[in-house]
């Protein structure tokens, strides 16, 4: 079982310029563990001090927001295309 993960350009300085990689993760928490091991610097960038994914990152699975699929409980299917995209907003204030 393998999924294809796509990263935005903003993340690639921590992945030696790689925008795509394959992962055998079963679900989102598994993917974060995988990133932790493979790209530790990226892991620091995308997770907050609480160890959770930062709020300004959206995860899509085959064009669908993972939150519509059950979020962390969604079980990745073989061949799923998973995208991490920073949400674009104006900040607080």
């Amino acid at each position, binding site marked *: 079982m393998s999924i294809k993960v796509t990263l*935005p*350009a*903003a993340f690639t*300085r921590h992945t030696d310029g790689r925008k795509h990689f394959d992962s055998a993760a079963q679900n989102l928490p598994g993917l974060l563990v995988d990133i932790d091991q493979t790209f530790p610097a990226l892991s620091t*960038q*995308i997770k907050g001090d609480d160890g959770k994914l*930062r*709020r*300004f*990152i*959206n995860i*899509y699975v085959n*064009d669908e*927001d993972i*939150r*519509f699929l059950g979020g962390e409980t969604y079980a990745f299917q073989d061949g799923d295309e998973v*995208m991490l*995209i*920073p*949400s*674009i*907003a*104006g*900040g*607080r*204030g």
Partner: protein
Amino acid sequence: MNYSCSRYELKCNECGKRYGNQPLSACPDCLYPLELAYDLDAARGIFTKENIAIGPANIWRYISLLPIPEGFQPDLPVGFTPLVRATNLGKRIGATNLYVKNDAVCFPTLSFKDRVVSVALANARKFGFDTVGCSSTGNLANAVAAQAARLGLKATILVPTDLEPAKILNTQVYGARLVRIDGNYDHVNRLCTQIADEYNWGFVNVNLRPYYAEGSKTVGFEIAEQLGWRLPDNVVVPMAGGSLIRKIRKAFNELIYLGLVEDKPTRFFGAQATGCSPISTAVKQGTDEVIPQRPNTIARSLAIGNPADGPAASRMIRDSGGWAEDVSDVEVVSGIQELAETEGIFTETAGGVTTAVTARLYADGRISRDQITISCITGNGLKTTDALAGHYQQERAVRPRLADFDAYIRELDGTHETELATAGAN
């Protein structure tokens, strides 16, 4: 691809880092959205009531608090739309101090998006982009297409597949390349973030977003100036991405800081359609956590299911002591009709949302009748006439004879011939 400027620069409000001026929307370190920070103290003595009063009758009278690069001479008379005392609408909904900020007549493309686009494209030019674009629910597409044409920039615009025909035509007529995406706005927006990574284009609401968003402040500046340099008690604002409502607040705060208005705790009220109400839901639940929705409403210009500024908007509304409401599509149409019938202002579906929500807020006692309240109308009804389909019949043609006309009017009024004869004799 970047420029330096002493008046303003990009800043991360999370980690505090500053990034000068470049096409960048998120902090490279912590991914927090970037915003423009001004040297407000340097603006003191420049951004004054007197200087503003002698400025042009458009948003450029506020240029010293807008991120417009040195040397760029904006010449489109954007904004400075009427603030209309809504006495008739007020009578209907129980309000004695209600105003409509009417961006249905904003120049050049009849929505408040003209404001944000004019600021974004000034920067697109400065950054050296020759192609600009956007993801849009319609009004933004129109504004980018028109203003890009005037500036001699190429435009590629991405829209959801179900957009109203008038908004598509109002984009294509300017010669812009329009790409319909088989999905909703959230799909389009996500694709645009990827395109901005791959193509060297200036996307007004992606890599130019911090600049773009600042243009919304002009709604707040105008409201304060048009009220005689004072702040209202309440502002009711439609919410799609959640940016406008926050920027009106930012404008008010800047005016307070610079002493142009007295400090006043203005309350902010957000308006959404129930069929796409992620932010109003969050406000009602008292949380910053905005759960995305799949939009299903005729108010397509507000149909953003995963609003980028939603969490910040929810927090700001609650901090201000305000509230958010959402209304059904039936109420949206009634809102359009009510504003047209009482004030002679024809707004699009988003304005129907705002008007219906404003009425609800008075009915529920969340706004009291004598408070100064602004209802922000952001777009023009001519763009969404399909929302009124079936509500008005095309009447039969009447022969050009007085007798036929008389008979026809009697038929419409259901009156008797004798009554008309009496009226005619007087």
